[in-house]
């Protein structure tokens, strides 16, 4: 029986697996009727998942975890049965001085840039509970910069960051493709580094599904994951990129700018690339969820009594992924859940008083 599934997403290059699956008829071939909803904000995706106006969405893993433990409203029963993409974000700083330090490593450039600011600089991220924010803060701390004291973070929608940098509302940003490149092309900022330089193959977007939909439609959920796995394989082929760009640029869909969307796809010109299929991109690894949660605890965002391991296991569902992956003949090594690389524990030591000590 054909099952309807309502999937929400934003206008971003890494929404590709869903729109490619639809364009290639992968949902239909597995008896799914997709209704795709393009939303203007992460908050809309979270709200529509919470109140049952969407069944699934392309989401930020930390926002799914935040929604599941009730950090932005009521606790919502959501699961992450698969990852959708890795990497793709860049950290950009504005002003003339940053151009002169191009020969230095990124950390030294940041420190020199900060020294030249006459007030606490504002750095934009796309959402409080975003991979962008957590990786930016992690890297700042690593460089000896306190993200709560030495800078100020504000949330600005990605499509507005270049203009905000140009008119001085912000001094820098961490945002997804294509906005880092767009800032350089506009001459208002310089890309300091990509988030994959901070954590190679870091999980970026994931599929979030309402738990009650997943429980009511177990077979359809498996088919949904299989369709997206097939789409991810297509998205990682450089020779398929032109077709994917055409799909992403479709006026009736995401309507993304062609050239910019092409740059971050495999074989594109951007330094920071999005990966969809290889290196375990689809695997919803518990250590990933735990890394995000530990960072949230580090910055004092988690309520006391939140148990990281339990939260991670409730939300992340490698069991559901493995079921679908086996049907697609994708090899899931038995030890994979124990051997997922995350940035080293030594780096996670809280550096500042603003971050309470970790207990895990």
């Amino acid at each position: 029986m054909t099952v309807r599934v309502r999937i929400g997403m934003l206008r971003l290059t890494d929404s590709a697996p869903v729109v490619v699956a639809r364009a290639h008829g992968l949902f239909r071939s597995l008896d799914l009727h997709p209704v795709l909803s393009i939303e203007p904000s992460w908050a809309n995706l979270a709200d529509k998942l919470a109140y049952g106006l969407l069944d699934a969405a392309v989401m930020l893993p930390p926002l799914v975890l935040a929604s599941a433990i009730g950090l932005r409203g009521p606790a919502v029963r959501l699961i992450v049965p698969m990852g959708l993409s890795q990497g793709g974000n860049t950290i950009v700083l504005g002003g003339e001085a940053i151009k002169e330090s191009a020969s230095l490593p990124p950390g030294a450039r940041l420190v020199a840039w900060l020294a030249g600011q006459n007030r606490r600089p504002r750095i934009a991220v796309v959402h409080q509970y975003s991979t962008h924010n957590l990786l930016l803060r992690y890297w700042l701390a690593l460089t000896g910069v306190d993200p709560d004291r030495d800078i100020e973070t504000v949330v600005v929608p990605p499509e507005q960051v270049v203009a905000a940098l140009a008119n001085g509302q912000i001094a820098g940003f961490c945002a997804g493709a294509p906005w880092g490149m767009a800032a350089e092309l506009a001459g208002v900022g310089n890309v300091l580094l990509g988030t994959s330089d901070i954590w190679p193959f870091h999980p970026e977007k994931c599929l979030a599904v309402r738990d009650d939909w997943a429980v009511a439609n177990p077979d359809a959920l498996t088919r949904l994951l299989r369709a997206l796995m097939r789409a991810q394989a297509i998205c990682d082929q450089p020779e398929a990129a032109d077709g994917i760009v055409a799909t992403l640029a479709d006026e009736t869909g995401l309507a993304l700018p062609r050239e910019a969307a092409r740059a971050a796809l495999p074989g594109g010109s951007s330094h920071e690339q999005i990966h969809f299929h290889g290196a375990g991109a689809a695997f919803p690894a518990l250590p990933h969820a735990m890394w995000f949660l530990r960072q949230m605890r580090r910055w004092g965002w988690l309520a006391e009594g939140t148990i990281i391991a339990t939260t991670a296991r409730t939300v992340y569902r490698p069991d559901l992924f493995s079921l679908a992956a086996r049907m697609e003949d994708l090899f899931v090594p038995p030890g994979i859940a124990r051997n997922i690389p995350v940035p080293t524990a030594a780096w996670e030591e809280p550096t500042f008083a603003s971050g309470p000590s970790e207990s895990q």
Partner: protein
Amino acid sequence: MRILLADDDAARAGALTKVLSADPSLTILRPGPGELLADAVAALAPDVVLVDMARPDRDALEGIRIVASNQPRPIVLFVDQDDAVFMEEAIRAGVSSYNVLGVPPPDVKPILRAAAAMFRHHQIARAELRDAERRLHEREIVDRAKAILIKERRMGEPDAYRWLRTRAMSSGRRIPDIAREVVARENVQVLSVNPASAPATTQGSNTQGSNTQGSYTQGSNTMGAEAQNRGAQ
């Protein structure tokens, strides 16, 4: 109570301001043009933020911490735990509400209710406008198809209309759809005088025709406020 109303639709914001201003205990504030939502919250210190869900900068409200009495507290989404249906209605209407610094929810619900009603009212008005535009456009297409039939088949106007109607009835489709085909065929014939252009037109109509394996809905979308909740209804 100070209410920050973040809605770029001037007519709707004006109407809602008028409704809420009837309660003298409410002060309605609006962000300045181009002002970041986070800056407006910091500068105006509202107790409640009502926000149009079509605004992409709605995300700026999530995670803002207001520093008061050494205890930074986040802005939180207003939620009526006991009335999920009401919350869903507000979301469908395209409006959301945030509490700043522990405003008791009983005071907020009537305000959000009024906002949801106003947003729904405008949604219906926009849908009716779209419908009227569509009808007008369809009438124009039918007129053009009739003109083509009158010229090419030397029919009188009543016969041209009957021709369209018979085709529609026998194929179980609507008259404007048949008229659109007549007009499209005419365009291809005209273009095929220049052979290079003809395939492009055909390809264009194929692209539209292949768009059948599932549907897109535009969520609350700034690119066109009229697209808001097109699929949600």
